[in-house]
């Protein structure tokens, strides 16, 4: 649903950096604040989503002076939140800031400080701190914001909260203390579930999975994943992440077919600008496909911007395709550092067995009858008793259906079977059916995903009626906001 792109901290640079003077940025921020305000009053979550998207675009232009001016604008000066947040923003460029406050004061700011705006300020400061690489302050700021969020139960805050959770986890990850917040995240996930905050659940589940996988705790990650409630995805990015983590877990647990599906889907669904994320997905997908005995097409490795990153995997694929154990070993050693930093080392160890399989398949296709001693020689099995090894390896390959052949123990050779005519069986019909079903399903899902503006089918209400209704709603919202203020 949401379109904002924030997969791997890779943002396209803002188009016109020349015009990015601080007043205009401040003006933008004020517009965003206004947008959030209307969103909060009319209870339209979509406005807030748009506000966040807008903020991400402004991200590169954030400066300390702008930020403190904005804080003065939206928060009540001297209030608890204001002083706390201001303490995180470095006091530089005093003069500039004063000018901004002066202008903001003349604009008759709304000084009642909505919770949405308060949370938004936290988010803004947090993004700023992370961009400035002031991670320890970011940690403190995010923890404070999470503590504040605990006491808020408003649907319009949920969107902002889910972003905050993300940066909360990110700030801890950057300092390498991810294990510390696991308990907190679990508690937050529980709260989000109780409040039916599905976006929050989605985000937190992903953060938790990331947290577990960061420490290679695949067992715990899978247990959590399989028990956490699932529902239709709200955010495309979160869904991509979820698929990626799911793919990783399944790869480790040897469910390659499912893993491949998740990883490929994650790579396809990810936004174009999230290059780093897509590269990761592709790396894993390549390995999983190799483990399945498939050979990925050359185009996979030639995708724009990925050639270099996928190079080691390309050479690996080549070695598996040829079925050459020596080459495979050489590649694995050559790129050992890359593989260990990608944490795919153990998977590559598993591939050895696929290399042998491919080699064996090639032999089985080329020869109708071959002695086991020759098989051992061709596969370059270096062991004490190559013929016996070759025999048991071949017999296992036959049982697993990798090759269609029989063994003759007395003569010590392998006889390949003639491949039968597949079109005389039901196979093609089944394959055809599954493809049609896939296409039809795709169409149905596309129809279901269409979104229509609310109430468009109803009669247009008259302008006067609408004004009346909006006024009523606003009054109600103000009432609620004041009540909230009283509480805290």
């Amino acid at each position, binding site marked *: 649903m949401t379109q904002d792109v924030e997969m791997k901290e890779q943002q396209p640079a803002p188009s016109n950096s020349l015009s990015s003077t601080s007043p205009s940025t401040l003006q933008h921020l004020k517009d965003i604040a206004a947008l959030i305000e209307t969103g909060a009053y009319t209870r339209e979550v979509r406005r807030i989503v748009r506000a966040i998207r807008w903020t991400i675009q402004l991200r590169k232009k954030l400066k300390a002076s702008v930020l403190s001016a904005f804080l003065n604008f939206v928060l009540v000066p001297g209030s608890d939140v204001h002083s706390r947040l201001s303490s995180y923003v470095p006091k530089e460029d005093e003069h500039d800031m004063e000018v901004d406050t002066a202008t903001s004061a003349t604009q008759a700011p709304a000084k009642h400080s909505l919770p949405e705006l308060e949370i938004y300020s936290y988010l803004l400061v947090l993004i700023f701190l992370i961009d400035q690489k002031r991670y320890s302050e970011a940690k403190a700021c995010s923890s404070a914001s999470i503590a504040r969020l605990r006491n808020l139960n408003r649907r319009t805050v949920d969107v902002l909260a889910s972003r905050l959770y993300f940066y909360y986890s990110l700030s801890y990850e950057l300092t390498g203390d991810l294990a510390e917040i696991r308990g907190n995240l679990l508690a937050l996930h529980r709260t989000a579930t109780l409040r039916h905050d599905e976006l929050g659940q989605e985000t937190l589940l992903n953060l938790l999975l990331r947290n577990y996988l960061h420490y*290679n705790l695949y067992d715990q990650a899978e247990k959590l994943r399989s028990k956490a409630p699932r529902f239709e995805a709200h955010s495309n990015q979160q869904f991509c992440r979820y698929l990626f983590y799911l793919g990783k877990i399944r790869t480790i647990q040897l469910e390659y077919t499912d893993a491949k599906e998740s990883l490929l889907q994650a790579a396809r669904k990810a936004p174009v600008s999230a290059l780093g994320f897509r590269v990761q997905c592709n790396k894993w997908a390549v390995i999983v496909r190799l483990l399945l005995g498939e050979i990925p097409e050359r185009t996979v490795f030639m995708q724009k911007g990925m050639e270099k990153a996928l190079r080691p995997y390309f050479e690996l694929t080549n070695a598996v395709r040829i079925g050459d154990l020596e080459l495979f070993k050489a590649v694995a050693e050559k790129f050992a550092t890359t593989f260990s930093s990608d944490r795919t080392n153990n998977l590559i160890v598993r591939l050895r067995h696929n290399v042998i399989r491919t080699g064996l398949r090639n032999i089985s296709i080329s020869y109708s009858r071959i002695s086991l001693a020759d098989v051992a020689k061709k596969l370059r099995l270096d062991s004490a008793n190559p013929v016996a090894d070759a025999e*048991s390896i071949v*017999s296992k390959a036959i049982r697993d259906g990798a090759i269609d052949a029989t063994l003759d123990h007395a003569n010590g050779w392998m006889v390949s079977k003639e491949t039968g005519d597949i079109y005389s069986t039901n196979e093609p019909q089944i394959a055809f059916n599954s493809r049609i079903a896939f296409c039809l399903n795709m169409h149905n899902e596309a129809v279901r995903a269409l979104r229509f503006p609310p109430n468009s089918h109803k009669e247009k209400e008259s302008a006067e009626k609408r004004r009346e209704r909006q006024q009523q709603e606003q009054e109600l919202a103000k009432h609620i906001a004041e009540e909230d203020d009283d509480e805290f």
Partner: protein
Amino acid sequence: MDPKITEVSQVFERFKAAFVRKDFDTCTSLLSQLKVLLTGFKSLPPLFEETPNAVHELTLARDIYEHAVVLSVKTEDQDAFERDFFQLKPYYTDARGRLPQSPQEYPILGLNLLRLLVQNRIAEFHTELELLSPSALENPCIKHAVELEQSFMEGAYNRVLSARQTVPHETYVYFMDLLAKTVRDEIAGCSEKAYDSLSLSDARQMLLFSSDKELLEYINEEHPEWEIKNGSVFFQRAKESVPCKEIPSLQLINQTLSYARELERIV
């Protein structure tokens, strides 16, 4: 010293003495006693409270659970092994920062890997493997298990069997023996598919029996469908995918109708 620690240490000393005497019944009863006593320590997982004796208590508890794991191998109780291992695991993972590494850590982790392999829980095997650091993978005890898994997957069963001679730790022998049984079943399964027939003597050799009688008993018990004729074993061939002679009409009608319905919806 804390009286609780003293008590636990004393019981543990008696346990160790019984352990050396190979008096495993006494060991088991002392162990349950010890486990109950350990619940009194607040510094142990999952609480991890920072008590003044935390390091001492953690080390003691870890030592006890390590012995418990080894004991379960000696008494050949796989369920107890699993239980004790999971109780021990937090001491290796979560308490890593608090304690110096135990010399028993890698042998026990390797033992657990071997157990998963024997029970054919390969997914869990790999999950455990991911938790190990690169330096741990170099350790002979771990490496042994990892190489076994590889040979096992490849189908190089001879290598699996010869690995019994090179066990890095005496406790491994129990699982290696179990593994030999698993390997035999695997070989039987593979042979069934790969050969049309085998002479009895070849089959005996391949399935690692010392006499024909044992072989025949095994066949009777596990694979009654194998046929023995003229001194050879004939395996029942699995059914090939036969060319379809009949058109599965009902299925086809259903499919075509569903296509029609879906197309109707689109147009």
